[in-house]
């Protein structure tokens, strides 16, 4: 992971760590913080805890997003401390709805500079964001909204399994991972398991990202904690709840980063700190499905 990040990222880049609740690669976020990157434009539908940590650590100049909270729990406090009237320091915000962000990735992954959608009429979002524009249908004459393409410098995609070439397979929630991978200029695939290519080839309909799109492949078990990986480990909902306490106060926030990000060399050490009991609590109870027949 260290080498993948250091050789793929530079200060000022546009970065997307994708995954909607599922498959959020905290391991990559922590490595970026450790390497002290600056002035990043951080792009995600839901910044979640991982981007809040990037913000608190001072890596982020601008946030592009559609929902910034701690799902079902509360706020992203590092972000709020930098986006409200009383804030001393500020980061730049570029805001859409989920559909708008998905549409930006669709445009980027399809090689078009814009994407049309039926949205935003009557809402203040288009007034607040001048990049939301309009286009007229050549058949009906109706107006539709448009959003501009996203083509980030780097996309980090976590998956259940990949081969050494980066052919990546995912099941469970897929969010906008495929679109992000095809939109980005560079792609890092992070996998819970590295498997032989014949495992990928046995079930080709599960492949979300083809290897020819991938610049680096990283093997990082438990790379998403406190997010989750279907079939491997559950979401650490307790931690997400505790986070409200940890992050509200800058001192406890700093202590957390010092201990769990700066205080460890890599994910292995993070997991040791987390402890066997936590991992045991979160380890998935197996629910295998059957295979299907690809014969002819």
């Amino acid at each position, binding site marked *: 992971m260290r080498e993948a990040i250091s050789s793929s990222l530079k200060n000022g880049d546009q970065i997307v760590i994708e995954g*909607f*609740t*599922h498959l959020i690669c905290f391991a990559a976020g922590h490595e970026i913080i450790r390497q002290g990157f600056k002035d990043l434009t951080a792009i995600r*539908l*839901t910044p979640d805890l991982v981007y809040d940590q990037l913000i608190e650590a001072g890596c982020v100049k601008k946030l592009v*997003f*559609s*929902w*910034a*909270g701690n*799902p*079902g*729990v509360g*706020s992203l406090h590092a*972000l*709020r401390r930098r*986006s*409200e*009237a009383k804030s001393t320091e500020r980061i730049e915000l570029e*805001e*859409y*709805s*989920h*559909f708008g962000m*998905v*549409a930006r*990735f*669709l445009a980027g992954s399809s090689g078009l500079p814009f994407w049309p*959608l*039926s*949205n*935003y*009429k*009557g*809402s*203040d*979002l288009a007034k*607040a964001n001048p990049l939301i524009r309009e286009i007229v249908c050549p058949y009906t004459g*109706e107006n539709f909204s448009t959003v501009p393409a996203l083509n980030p410098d780097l996309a980090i995609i976590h998956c259940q399994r990949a081969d050494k070439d980066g052919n990546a397979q995912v*099941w*469970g*929630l*897929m*969010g*906008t991972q*495929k*679109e992000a991978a095809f939109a980005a200029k560079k792609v890092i695939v992070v996998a819970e398991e590295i498997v032989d290519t014949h495992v990928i080839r046995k079930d080709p309909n599960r492949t979300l990202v083809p290897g020819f799109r991938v610049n680096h492949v990283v093997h990082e078990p438990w790379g998403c904690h406190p997010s*989750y990986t*279907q079939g491997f480990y*559950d*979401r650490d*909902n307790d931690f*997400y709840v505790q986070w409200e306490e940890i992050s509200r106060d800058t001192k406890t926030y700093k202590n957390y980063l010092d201990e769990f990000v700066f205080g460890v060399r890599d994910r292995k050490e993070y997991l040791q700190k987390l402890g066997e009991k936590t991992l045991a609590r979160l380890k*998935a109870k197996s*629910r295998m499905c059957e295979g299907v027949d690809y014969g002819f």
Partner: protein
Amino acid sequence: MDFSSSELMAYRASLELKDADVVFVGIGLPNLACNLARETHAPNLCLIYESGAVGAVPERLPVSIGDPALVTDSLAIVGMADIFQSYLQRGFIEVGFLGGAQVDRWGNINTTVIGDYKNPKVRLPGSGGACEIAIHARKLFLVMKMNPKSFVEKCDFITSPGNRSNGKTRKEWGLPGSGPLTAITDLGVCTFIDGEMTLTETYPGVSLEKIKTSCGWPLKIASDLKTCPPPSPAILKLLREKLDPQKLFLG
């Protein structure tokens, strides 16, 4: 029989659901309402989550809309591009639920900022999927607790357009969805009549005065004001012992 306003809200919201409806579900009370409906009068409700789970049958109450329990044993898991384009924008979502920090008499909802957008007093999470749900859901229901801070004369920011916003009606904007039909609150139930929020049901033991003082504008009152029937002991048992035993969302 004693019950909390959250329990009553979840129960009342469940009554809006018909069997086999295709529902776009959020977290919290709407999710409870859907699971209650599935346990009672709407066993074939099709729950769709913006995360991509279709026909979900969560074994546990999901803490987030991307909970792994929404995936296991779902009918389908699809990408979010499909959810927003082929399910919502295509017009296949029959019911949507929304709430927020502020709502006005036309059902416009603010989940973006309190105060000025560029210099907000409070930065809220933002739209998520709310704006497009407000625009496309065939039937839209609001679920919010009522107080003068949340039921306001004018929203600081319109995240999700209601029945009349920025000087135009829904029809004039050409929005495909129904717009807000009903607002289920902790004090009573409002129906949107000619687009405007109008109190049509009060809860047992809640005075009209209390409701009036809890709303930030002179709330219209229906001439034929009803009292919402309380949930039966069986319903309460379901909510407390099966659907939210940890009281995650039932205060």
